[in-house]
Every structure is written in C-alpha cells, then in structure tokens.
C-alpha cells in the first residue's frame, strides 16, 4: 500500500486549521453566547447570589441566569476586564474597588443607566450626589451600589464588663483612645487600630482638593500620629505583627482569640462571630458607633458592591430586570454575607436572622445592634472622584506602614504621600 505524502501546502493548511480550531473558541465577539443571562460577581454563589438568582428566576421564569464568581483581587479583576474586553458573554457584573470603577466606566465597559434611573421613582435616590449610591461618569449613571456597609466599633462584652468600661453610645476619637487604654491588659491590646480620622472629618473624596491632593489637611497627619502613638504605648496592635502575620486579611482571628479588643469594622465581618464551631469563642459582641472627630461624623463605611451592565450585552432588558430586582426586592439573601441592601427594603427581623445567624442573642448584644446598625443612619462616604486612585491607595498604605513601624515621622510620611498623590493626579489628568 502506497503511503500518502503530504505537500508543504497541505501541512501548512493542517497547521492553520489546528491553530484556528484551538484559538477560535476562546476569542471573537459573540463567541459562545448562550441564552442565559451571564452575571459575574465576587461573592461566592453560596453566600447569597445563588439565592438571589433562584428568586429572580422564580419571579421571571422567562429568564435564565448563570452566576460566575471571580475572585475579587488583582488577578480576578484582570480576568473580568480581559473577559469584558475580549467579548466574553457577560451581561451583568460587579465592581468592588473604586479604582477599577473609574477605569471600567471611563472605558466604555458600562452601559448608561441614566434614563432607567431617572424614570423610576424607586431608583431616584441613585441620583443623590450628597451621599452618592451610584457612580456618575460625565453626567451618566454607570454603576449602582447594591450594598450599604457602615462601619462600627465592636466590643468584646466579657472583657468590657471585666474592665468596667461603659458601652459608648456616642464618643469622640479621644474617648476611643482612652477607652482602648483602659481595655489594654497583659494579654489583650486595647484596639486593632485607629479608625480613619481624616475620613470621619472630611467625608467623601477626601483625598482631593481641586486639581491637587488634599493631604495637606491636618487630619491626615493626625491619623498617622494617633495610630503611631497608640502602637507605641501598647494600646493598638503592633504593626510589626500585623505585617509579619499578614493580619490585615485575618483580623477576625485575633479578635476571636482576644489578642485585641476594640475592632472598627463593617457588617461583612459579622459572619465570623456567630459560628462558634467554626470560629470558637466564648463571648458576646456589642456595638458602638464610629467615633467623631472635631464634631464631624462621617462614617468610614460606604455604599459599595456596584452592579453594572455590559454595553455589549444583547440582553439589555433582561439584564436591567435582573439589576432592578437585585436593588429593590431581591437582595435579602445577601444579608448572610453581611451586605445590607443599598435601598433598604428589608425588615429588622430579616436583617437579624440574615446577618447574625440562628442564635443572635447568644453571640450579640441585641440592644446595641439595634441602636447602631438598625436604627442609626450614619453618613456614608462613597468616593466618586477617582483620579489616580490606585496609585494614591498604594502611597497611603506604604507610608502608613513605615510610620506605624516607627521608621518614619508622621509629618514626613504624609508629606511623601502628598508628593506621590500630587504626581499621580497630575499624570492621570494629563492622559487623554
């Protein structure tokens, strides 16, 4: 039998076909579009989104939804960005960091939702610019916050009662500091760290002043200085330990093991406090509001978890139906991950059972929870000016670390932040 010989042309054609077969499924706009609405978010489906999707499909049986989770870190966000840019089938997606927000909204990756919001009385609150719940780019609404994440200060009730400290219902940053001092023992540091003093005093967009940075405001240096002094006198957690143990991502472990007492945090960390089997501890937690600074009372938390529609989506109506459902009536399941709905729309009982587990009275002081979380209406500071945001975020972190390690004077550190931030703002505003 004669063996077939391949010509050069045949071989090249074969290579080309093999290459095309390998590459085509992975690229091209519209490649692999499915009938179901594609939603990408950073919260695991089991922590709420799965139930939101189920409820939506029950109400709108004409729509099917696939929820895909991306990890909300640098790599996960890059994956989302390349997928959006590469034409992957995504109709609705979430943005969690303000740095990514500016980039996506400004680069044509977010549909204009202005008309939908303006014409819907239920959603008009998203046009508020005093305490913004949306991201508005050049007058167009591009993203809507789904969650409200106010900060509060948690107390370890057992240790608080042992120390004879009264649970504050309103307090200043100086009182926070003196309370941390009274709560400091041989085994327990008074506080994890100091709340963001500049944020409390200055509110949203506090990094910017006109076309320059705002780090000349004395509250920034005050924040660095108070943090450093508290670490030095042993009333705040040593920053060497925070860095060496990567504690910033695992604060809850040290709170549960009573390594520190006062914990300024937000509802998303409550999930560690009602499961004593998984996160063993034998104390109740009580709530105090964030301290005030010079009579100013902005909360360190914000409206967050922004939902956006891909402008390339061919299923805009279905996508909008899903977005509106999530915002107005569907977000209750997200309480289990500590996400209070941005528009409210949930009862106190739903918040309690959703966010505090099956035995809320066993793990939480319910009076203070009601007072601080359910009844209070803190002023949330959501940044909407985002020029050079990632660069400034890094500069603040780097100089804060050096300052709180005791290696750099607070004034010198803040001046360096100011120099870097001014440069980042100037550079980004020069860009087309």
């Amino acid at each position, binding site marked *: 039998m004669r*063996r077939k*010989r*391949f*010509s*050069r042309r045949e*071989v090249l054609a*074969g*290579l080309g076909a*093999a*290459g095309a077969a*390998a*590459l085509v499924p992975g690229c091209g706009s519209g490649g692999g579009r499915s009938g179901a609405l594609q939603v990408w978010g950073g919260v695991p489906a089991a922590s709420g989104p799965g139930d939101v999707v189920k409820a939506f499909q029950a109400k709108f049986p004409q729509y099917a939804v696939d929820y895909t989770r991306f990890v909300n870190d*640098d*790599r996960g966000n*890059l994956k989302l*960005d*390349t997928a*959006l*840019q590469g034409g992957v089938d995504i109709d609705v997606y979430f943005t969690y960091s303000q740095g990514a927000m500016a*980039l*996506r909204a400004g*680069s*044509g*990756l977010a549909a204009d939702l202005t008309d939908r919001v303006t014409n819907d009385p239920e959603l008009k609150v998203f046009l508020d610019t005093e305490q913004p719940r949306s991201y508005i780019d050049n007058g167009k609404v591009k993203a809507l916050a789904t969650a409200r994440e106010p900060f509060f200060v948690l107390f370890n009730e057992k240790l608080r009662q042992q120390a004879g400290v009264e649970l504050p219902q309103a307090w200043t940053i100086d009182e926070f500091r003196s309370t941390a001092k009274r709560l400091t023992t041989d085994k327990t540091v008074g506080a994890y760290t100091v709340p963001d003093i500049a944020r409390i005093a200055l509110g949203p967009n506090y990094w910017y002043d006109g076309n320059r940075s705002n780090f000349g405001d004395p509250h920034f240096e005050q924040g660095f200085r108070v943090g450093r002094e508290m670490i030095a006198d042993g009333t705040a957690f040593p*920053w*060497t*330990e925070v*860095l*060496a*143990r*990567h504690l910033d991502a695992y604060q809850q472990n040290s709170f549960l093991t009573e390594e520190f007492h006062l914990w300024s945090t937000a509802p998303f960390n409550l999930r560690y406090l009602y499961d004593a089997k998984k996160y063993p501890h034998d104390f109740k937690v009580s709530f105090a509001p964030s301290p005030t600074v010079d009579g100013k009372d902005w909360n360190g938390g914000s409206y967050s978890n922004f939902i956006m529609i891909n402008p390339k989506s061919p299923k805009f109506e279905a996508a909008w139906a899903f977005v509106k459902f999530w915002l107005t009536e569907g977000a209750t399941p997200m309480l289990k991950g500590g996400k209070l709905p941005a528009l409210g729309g949930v009862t106190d009982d739903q918040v309690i059972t959703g966010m505090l587990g099956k035995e809320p009275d066993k793990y939480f002081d319910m009076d203070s929870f009601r007072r601080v979380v359910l009844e209070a209406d803190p002023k949330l500071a959501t940044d909407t000016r985002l020029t050079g945001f*990632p*660069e400034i975020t*890094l500069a603040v*972190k*780097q*100089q804060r*670390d*050096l300052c709180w*390690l005791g*290696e*750099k004077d607070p004034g010198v550190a803040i001046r360096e932040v100011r120099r870097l931030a001014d440069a980042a703002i100037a550079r980004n505003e020069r*860009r*087309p």
Partner: protein
Amino acid sequence: MATAAVATASRVRTEKAPGIKPRGWIGFLFIAPNLLGVIAFTLIPLISVVVLAFTDWNLVSGLGGITFNGIDNFVAIARDPGFWHAIGLTLVYVVVSVPLTVVLGLALGIALNRPLPGRAVLRAIFFLPYIVNVVAIGMTWLMLMNPKAGLVNQVLDAFGIQPGWFASSHWALPALIVMAIWGGVGYCSLIYLSALQDAPRQLYEAADIDGASAWAKFRVITWPSLLPTTIFLLVTLIIGASQGFGLIALITAGGPGDSTTTISYYMYQTGFQFYRFGYASAIGLVTFVGVLVLTLLTWRAQRGRALNE
C-alpha cells in the same frame, strides 16, 4: 489534470531542495502543538510588549484605546524615581544573592563529592528547596522569620540581635536574599557535583604524584574545569534573580514602604494595579536590555578568563 500538475510541482521542489523530503514536513505536525504554544504565549506577547512600550494603554479601553506616544514612556522612565529605586534594589538583590549562591553551591558540591555516609540522602535534601512550591517556601519562612515568635529570632536572641525581617524596611530585602540563597544553593551544588564528577581523574593523580596541596589542586585543576559550569550558573541565576517576583508578591507585596519593590514587582504594580500597560511594557523592555547587557558582560568576562586559563 490538476493533480498531475501538483505532483509535478512537488517533484520540482524536491529536486530543488534535495535535503528536505516531502514527508519531512509531517514532522511539523508533531511539533505543531508546541510551536503554536510558543507562538501564542511567547512570541506574540513578546512582540506585543515591544509595540506597547511605545503606547499609552490601560487594557480596559481595548485595542481601540491604544494611543502611540513615541518615546514618551522611555523619557518618563528616565525621570521616574520609583523606577531607579527599583533598579537599585534589584541590583543589590542580584549582586549579593547570585555570588553567594554560587560560592556556597560550589562549597556544598565539593563537600557532597566526597564519600560521606548518606550522601545520596543529603543531595536530595539540599535539592529539595528547588522543587518545593514557592507558596510553601514563603509561608514557612514567614513563620520562621516572625520577629516576635519566629525560630530565627529566638536563635539570634542569644547574640542580642532581633531583626524585624519582613516587618522592617531595613531587613525585608536581606530576608528575601537569605531565602533566595537558601533556595538556590542546592541547585548549584547539584550542577557543580555533576561537573566535578567529569573532572579529569588523571590530572588529580598526576598532581598527587607531584605532591600538590589541596588548594593547588583546586586552583589549577578543579576551578578551570568548573568554569563553563560557573558561567552557566551565573548567567541563569542573574536572569532568575532579575525576574524575582513570586516570593515578593507572596510575602511583602513590595513593602514595607517600597523596600522590596524590585523591578519585576514595580512592573507588575504599574501594569496590573495601575493599569498603565504601555509604561509597564517600556519598563519590561528596558529591563530586558539591562539584563541582556549584564548577562553578556558576565559571560564575556568569565569566558575571557576561561580562555586565558
């Protein structure tokens, strides 16, 4: 008719290039998967980096958002204190870690070349750091070098030294260098070991007859025979150290401050945190040229010495 024409053309081509038989092209099918991989994941990104180095691009804006800006990125690099700081740190990292790794690797290689009891086990143990996952290495060293509770500081405490290691801007880079040396010595020793076993026995025997000292034998016989290996190790280690990224990303994220922001990590920050892909590509290109020059200088210097000896 057409078939006949193709067959004739094929014959003509074969006659023009007698060294290549038509069925030799089948071989390309076998290497096609690898070839496609190299084209897709090495060649195209490489060319893209060169092109992007002359642009202002943030990835998210898509291909339509690419703006060519000539040599602006390179001018900005020349004036960027962050870039020069990162270059300085990278040079310190390379200049300290590479020679120490090679010297200690050589010493260990010579030691393991002697008839020690359990030699095979020792070789495997010293080589282990080279094959262990970088995350496991990072986490282990993070615990060992904890300033308060780590084993390293508990030992150093006896000498009155308490470095802050990864929680100190003065000690973080030395800590990374220690880790790099620890990770590289076993690999170097194994390469040296194989070179030592190829060294000409008869020269050692002749030197023994002449009554040469151990140092004289090392200087005149061992070292010259190890020079090609040393050049290879220096070149690969310099390239590897210049690209050092994994442990920095895992343990220090460039900090505290910017004390461990080497050029690879600076490039990563610029590209993947600030989304300045054009500028990051220009940094990559400049770094590539720098590492190439450094490698060539090393190679030429060592090669010149090898030829002289």
